[in-house]
Structure formats: structure tokens, C-alpha cells
């Protein structure tokens, strides 16, 4: 026992580097599996005391990926993703929202070269976390702990055979589970039955909100708003204008991320109207902070602690485009 500890101590630096490589490999494998395998199953989603189940199907085709998730409880809301195009059917509000995701193929990990992983390791501590069995599959657990109080931690259960992510939990600072999703059962197949990938709601009598994909990034010189204070490691990755459902004018949308956690900042003109929201809101892992500035409503949304959304919301400043910073 003592000798084992001694050896562990001796090999720790080397071992840690090795573990890092293994982790990166496992995570890359997970990303590949999620994108390239064909599978369907039942996913259980737990948030606070609330448990819901949904059915999920994923098919990789020549043209790209098709993924469909339908809630099996309550309103039959569903999301169908066709590569970068995400369609949400919301029968409770009789609406459909269509948006085109901003990042290209490959997702976050394909862009995560060694340097980025090193940068991430400054913000989070990654470690292998034992083994477990989920949905009848043996899994490797990975624990990702934040190094400060501005982000949450993650625990991932990766299928040893396929690499698929079979269970995932978001953890608070005190490692309390904020929300988790888990496959109750999953089938990895050659081809997912086509019917599983079709929307169950025709959506004909729904109101469709389609995000204008023509809207381009706002070039830095033309940006009227900026975030002046972000927790360590967060970067602005995009600044665009969107038309949100139920709105008559464009909202400026800033997306910031530390590599794992993403936060959206929405800025909308109030046109003299009073701000409808004020202060912090939360649901499960999602925190929202809203404030008003210069006749604009600022809403910050993200799966990060309350302090993070508040810091971002309160640091938003208006600037004269082209006038430079400060």
C-alpha cells in the first residue's frame, strides 16, 4: 500500500500528462461517435425533482446528420436537427422556431487542438473517474471540475465499446447534480428507421419563426455593444443580430464561451418601453440575469452559476461604433 502510494507519487506528473492524452482521446472518440454512429433510444432527463423522458434518434447520412428528440411527457415538443439547421416544434405555443447553428461541421472538439485543451486545463481539472454501467453498457466515467466558481463541472459516462455519451451530469460548485441526462436504453444500428426521424407534428397551423440565415456577423468596428468584464477564459465567439420569436425588432446576440460552457447575451431596444425583466432567474442549471441599459434590455442566459451571468450582464456597455474601445 505504502509502496503503491510512493510509486503513484513518483509517477504523478508523467501519469497526469498521460491521463490528459487519454482523456482527449476519449473525448474525441465520443464526439466522433455522437456524429457518425446511428442510434436510437430513450433518454431520461432529470432536473431538480423533475424527471422527463424523451426519445432520441440519430442518423448520419451522406448529406449530413439527422437527429430527432421528442419529449414523451407533457407537451410533445420536439427538436429535429438537420446538420446545422435546428427546428423546434413547440405544440404548446403552436409555434416552430428554425435556426441555423453558427459553428461549422465538426463541433467543438474537432477545433480543440492540443493548445486549446491546454487552455481548458487551466480552467478545469479533467480526470478519469472510474467505471460504471449505463443502459446495459460498460462505461468510462470522466470528471471535469471547474477551477473557479464561475463555471459548473461535468461528469460524463462514455460507452467503452462505441464511445457514445450515455450519461451526462452537470455539477454545481459543491458537486451537487444540477441536471442529468441518461439513456435508459439505446440501440446502435446500421440504419435508424426513417419514421423515427420525421416530425410527429405537421406544424401546418403553427406560426413559423425562421431566423434569417443571411444575417452575418457584425464586424468588430460596427459593434455598438460589448462585454467589458468576463470570467477568466471566456471569449466572445460571435456577435450577430437575430429576430427572436414574438419580437418585432432584431436582438443583438453575443455568444461567449470558455470552451465548455456557453453564455448568450441578448440586447434589444426597448424603444421607451419599460424593461419586462429585472434581476436573476433560474431553472435547474440555467441561470438568467436581466437588466436594462440606455433604453435596451439585456438578457444573459447560460448553464453557468448565477454570478457569471450577473457579471456579464452588468458589464455590457454601449460604445460608438468605430470609435474604438474606451
Amino acid at each position, binding site marked *: 500500500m505504502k509502496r503503491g502510494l510512493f510509486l503513484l507519487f513518483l509517477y504523478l506528473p508523467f501519469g497526469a500528462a498521460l491521463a490528459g492524452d487519454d482523456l482527449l482521446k476519449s473525448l474525441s472518440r465520443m464526439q466522433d461517435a455522437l456524429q457518425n454512429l446511428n442510434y436510437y433510444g430513450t433518454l431520461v432527463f432529470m432536473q431538480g425533482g423533475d424527471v422527463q423522458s424523451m426519445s432520441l434518434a440519430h442518423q448520419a447520412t451522406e448529406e449530413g446528420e439527422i437527429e430527432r428528440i421528442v419529449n414523451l411527457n407533457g407537451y410533445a415538443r420536439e427538436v429535429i436537427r438537420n446538420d446545422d439547421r435546428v427546428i423546434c416544434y413547440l405544440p404548446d405555443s403552436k*409555434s416552430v422556431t428554425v435556426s441555423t447553428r*453558427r459553428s461549422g461541421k465538426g*463541433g*467543438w472538439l474537432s477545433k480543440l487542438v492540443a493548445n486549446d485543451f491546454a487552455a481548458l486545463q487551466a480552467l478545469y481539472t479533467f480526470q478519469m473517474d472510474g467505471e460504471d454501467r449505463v443502459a446495459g453498457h460498460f462505461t468510462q466515467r470522466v470528471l471535469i471540475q471547474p477551477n473557479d466558481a464561475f463555471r459548473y463541472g461535468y461528469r460524463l459516462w462514455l460507452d467503452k465499446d462505441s464511445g457514445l455519451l450515455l450519461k451526462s451530469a452537470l455539477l454545481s460548485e459543491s458537486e451537487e447534480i444540477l441536471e442529468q441526462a441518461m439513456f435508459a436504453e439505446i440501440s446502435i444500428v446500421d440504419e435508424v428507421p426513417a419514421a423515427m426521424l420525421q416530425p410527429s407534428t405537421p406544424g401546418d397551423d403553427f406560426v413559423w419563426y425562421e431566423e434569417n440565415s443571411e444575417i452575418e456577423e457584425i464586424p468588430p468596428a460596427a459593434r455598438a455593444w460589448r462585454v467589458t468584464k468576463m470570467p477568466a477564459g471566456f471569449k466572445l465567439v460571435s456577435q450577430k443580430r437575430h429576430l427572436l420569436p414574438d419580437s418585432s425588432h432584431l436582438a443583438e446576440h453575443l455568444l461567449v464561451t470558455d470552451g465548455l460552457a456557453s453564455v448568450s447575451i441578448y440586447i434589444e431596444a426597448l424603444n421607451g418601453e419599460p424593461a419586462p425583466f429585472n434581476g436573476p432567474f433560474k431553472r435547474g442549471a440555467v441561470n438568467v440575469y436581466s437588466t436594462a441599459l440606455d433604453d435596451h434590455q439585456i438578457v444573459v442566459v447560460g448553464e453557468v452559476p448565477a454570478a457569471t451571468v450577473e457579471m456579464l450582464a452588468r458589464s455590457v456597455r454601449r460604445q460608438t461604433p468605430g470609435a474604438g474601445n474606451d
Partner: protein
Amino acid sequence: MTNLSDERLSSLIDGELDDTQQRHAIDALIHDADARERWERFHLASDALHGNLPGAIDPRFASRVMAAIEDEPTILAPPPPRKPSVSTDSTDHAPARASFSKRFAGLAVAASVAAIAVMGVESLYHEDPMAPRNQQVAESKAEPSEYIRLARQPSAPLGATLASSNAPLATSAAGPSLAARAEMLRAHPEIARRIDPRLHKYLINHSQQAARSNIQGVMPYARIVTYPGVPQRPVQQ
């Protein structure tokens, strides 16, 4: 039974309990001084965090309203049936009932006054016919007409309480500092309001936008399909 969890209290404040649950929670509040204190603290903290506090507020507001109402037996409910020999008849439950109804009324008044005070601030912000949460809370708490009447036409003792409440405990109108608020949120995460349904369009858009960069695979979509209630009202275009 009178053990009112923080979670329950927070749901009560957010108006998330059904009628029966709300009745039980209020019953528990009446009988549990500790819960009442927490309830006041939550309200105060919640209002402070949401910037709804006036320049100054009396931390013992609810208990003072309750005390004022105990001193003012005729305002609220019709007087409870009493026998002439009320104080000597130990088998008679009327005094207990009277005290119960008075105290309940006091609590309800304190709640509705607080809610209406908040509503006064909030109604500036909401002309939306889809009643915001606070208005719903105020309405449901102020249901019995006596409470509304009293809350809207403050009697002498209540007026006095309100007037005197301007003196103690200075809370700056701007609210506590960021650090203090962050600390408060850490200590009482339940203070942050449940997501207002009208915020769902932001949540859904965020999930749509951020999904690709998410390490948790489909988690953002799971969030989209499980947000409770109506995420947004469709507008005919």
C-alpha cells in the same frame, strides 16, 4: 407537518403551489414562527435581488402588520361566534379559532401588502395581459375580499405600521452591492426566481445557438423540449 422546507417556501413565494398546497403552506406559516421568519427573509432578499425594494423597509414588517391586526379585532373577518363567558370556558374552541383567523388574516394582509407593493413597482413594467407571476401571486393571496379591502384602505393601525416602517433598516434604493448579492445568492440559491415563461424564447434560442459547442451532446435539446409551460405566445404575422 409545520416543517416548511426552503424549497416549499420559495414555491409559495413564486406562486407555484396549487390551492391545497398553498393552504397547507400558509397553515404551516401561521404555526411556525421560524418558517415565518424565513418567509420574510426570502421575500426581502428576493425583492432586494430584483431591485424591488423601496429606499427603506422594516424587516419586521409582516409581524408588525400581524400585531396591528391582532389589536384590531373588527376589521377583518366577522367576529367569531363567542359566548358571553368566553374567557372562562376552557372547552370552548372559539378563542383559538378567533386567534387563528386573526393571525391568518394578518399574515395574508402582510403578504398582500408586500405583494401589492411589489406589484406597484412591477406593474410599471407589465402591461402585458398575460399576468406576470407577481400579479398572480398578489391576486391569489388577496383572494378573500376582506384582505383586499384592508390592503387597499389601510386602517389606522396598518397605516401607522406602514408609516413607521419608513424609519428603520436602511437599504439603499440601488440595492446591495454586487458582492453582497452574489453572496446572498450563494447562500440562498432558491431566491432567484423561477424562469419567467416569457424568457423561454431566449432560453430556446440560446440552446439552439450553443448546442454545437456543448460537451454534453444533446443536453441543450433536452432542455428545449422540457422547459415547462408555454415558451412563447405566437404572434400572428
